[in-house]
């Protein structure tokens, strides 16, 4: 078959290869198996060493901020799923929390506990996925298969709760829609009981592996100043010597009632980030055990409410809608026209698995946000590649991109 005629010109016609400074320009992406999505890097090379890196993003720009201006608040919730699609619930939560602060409602305790469970399960899923893909990029196929196996178990649990594997939309503004299913706790317990052994398996495979160490140690070192200046958050910042976790420092939900440590390292290299991720998985398991206890406590105390009571903004429970006229009318208005938050602005940051996920909402009293800015951590974790890559060699690019844990739904939004 003759190729369909098109107007695309050969890609590198504008690059001269006989430049005097011996510099080669390498195009990396936008479709590269180890770029974790659609990252395009223009690398200026001297021999194999990078002298200048120019990350080009936007290949997954889908116009989410524009969509938000044209959607009522509840309508936008499923769109947030597609931002950081490795851990959807954390985005749902960030948005829900920002709107809740705007309309000033208090979420019932049981909903808070369920939310925390979902968030931490998402964190585990994200970290397992990070481990799998990074190990795959470095060449460790076994870890990929093991970590995906565990991730599938978690997805089963989540699927039992909300019906979706990847895009959960499991959190609503004002609470959660459902109570957790009967098998949730037992399944989660079974999983958590096995998790330490599984994490030890990965560590046995990687920690003393010579290839892994050579690709990780002393590669991609980010100093504290650089991390702060580039707006790094989450594990990227913690691996660079700043013990900053929003769950600890500005606690939201019930994180102030939970005991956990914030692992950090002052090395700042790839290996430090790997260690931070592994330790965070252990801490997350610890948090999940405590949330299970908290959940059982709420069951004992008979706290069954799942949605906040704020008839102006949030629909009544299903039973009320079906039995009471006023609730039905309220529900109809909220669904067809949307809630109208007060005039004002809010910026709320939450600790997503990747870092600080912030939602800036400017409301003008209408059912549509006037301006919604998504502060996605991966955006700056990609930006730092500009300063981080020069001086490294080509093979290091893959391991550095791997440990920055960038997700392009979030970078480009």
């Amino acid at each position, binding site marked *: 078959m003759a190729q369909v005629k098109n107007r695309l010109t050969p890609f590198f016609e504008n690059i001269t290869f006989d430049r005097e400074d011996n510099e080669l320009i390498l195009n990396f992406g936008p*479709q590269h198996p180890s770029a974790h999505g659609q990252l395009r890097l223009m690398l200026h090379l001297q021999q194999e060493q990078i002298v200048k890196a120019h990350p080009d993003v936007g290949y997954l720009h889908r116009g989410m901020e524009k969509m938000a201006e044209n959607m009522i608040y509840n309508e936008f919730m499923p769109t947030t799923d597609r931002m950081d699609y490795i851990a959807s619930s954390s985005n749902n939560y960030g948005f829900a929390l920002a709107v809740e602060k705007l309309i000033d409602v208090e979420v019932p305790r049981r909903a808070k506990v369920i939310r925390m469970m979902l968030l931490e399960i998402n964190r585990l899923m994200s970290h397992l996925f990070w481990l799998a893909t990074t190990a795959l990029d470095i060449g460790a196929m076994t870890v990929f298969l093991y970590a995906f*196996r565990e991730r599938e178990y978690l997805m089963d649990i989540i699927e039992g709760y909300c019906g979706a594997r990847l895009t959960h939309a499991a959190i609503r503004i004002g609470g959660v829609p459902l109570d957790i299913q009967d098998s949730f706790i037992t399944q989660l317990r079974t999983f958590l009981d096995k998790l330490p052994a599984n994490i030890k398996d990965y560590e046995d495979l990687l920690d003393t592996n010579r290839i892994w160490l050579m690709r990780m140690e002393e590669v991609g070192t980010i100093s504290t100043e650089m991390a702060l200046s580039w707006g790094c958050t989450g594990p990227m910042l913690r691996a660079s010597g700043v013990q900053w976790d929003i769950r600890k420092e500005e606690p939201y939900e019930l994180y102030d009632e939970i005991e956990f440590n914030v692992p950090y390292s002052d090395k700042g290299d790839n290996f430090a980030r790997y260690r931070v991720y592994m330790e965070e998985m252990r801490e997350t398991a610890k948090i999940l055990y405590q949330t299970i206890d908290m959940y059982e406590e709420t069951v004992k105390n008979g706290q069954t409410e799942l949605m906040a009571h704020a008839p102006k903004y949030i629909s009544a429970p299903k039973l009320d809608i079906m039995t009471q006229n006023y609730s039905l009318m309220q529900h109809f208005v909220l669904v067809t026209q949307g809630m109208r938050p007060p005039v004002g602005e809010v910026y709320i940051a939450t600790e997503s698995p990747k870092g600080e996920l912030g939602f800036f909402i400017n409301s003008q009293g209408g059912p549509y946000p006037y301006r919604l800015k998504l502060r996605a951590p991966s955006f700056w974790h990609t930006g730092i590649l500009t300063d981080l890559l020069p001086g490294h060699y080509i093979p290091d690019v893959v391991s550095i991109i791997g440990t920055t844990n960038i997700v392009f739904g979030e970078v480009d939004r």
Partner: protein
Amino acid sequence: MAQHKVNYTQDGGLPVALTSIDKIVNWGRSNSIWALTYGLACCGIEMMASGASRFDFDRYGTIFRASPRQADVMIVAGTLTKKHAEFIKRLYDQMTEPRWVISMGSCANTGGMFNTYATVQGCDRVIPVDLYLPGCAPRPETLQYGVMLLQKKIRANKAGNAQKPKRLM
């Protein structure tokens, strides 16, 4: 040495098989559909999951390849944006024939929920598509079913003939 009882007369057990060229070529093609790793967005994660431990695509001979020149099928998994559109065309042109395209997920089918300025409303505006998988994101089972249907489609073709030009324009 262990003695395995092989029933040479049953299907699959015979070291010599008589068949037509069509069948043997299509057998080879349909059972070694190498897919291009073309994870664009969320569906790409489900595509990885289908390649990983539980869903194990290697059973179908579907192995993900990083280069379009080694791939038979392009699984467009995720949102195709206007900025990326030219690259999908480039990669499709680089694939060797016979080649197939699976459009995975709502975004690749029709633009899906992203009815915005930056999204191509369906990757079939740029390249011809053989199979559309619904879902946002489709489960790995959906992709499995899609690959099985594609195998069936390949087997239905005459292997000797050149692949029919697919109409896009």
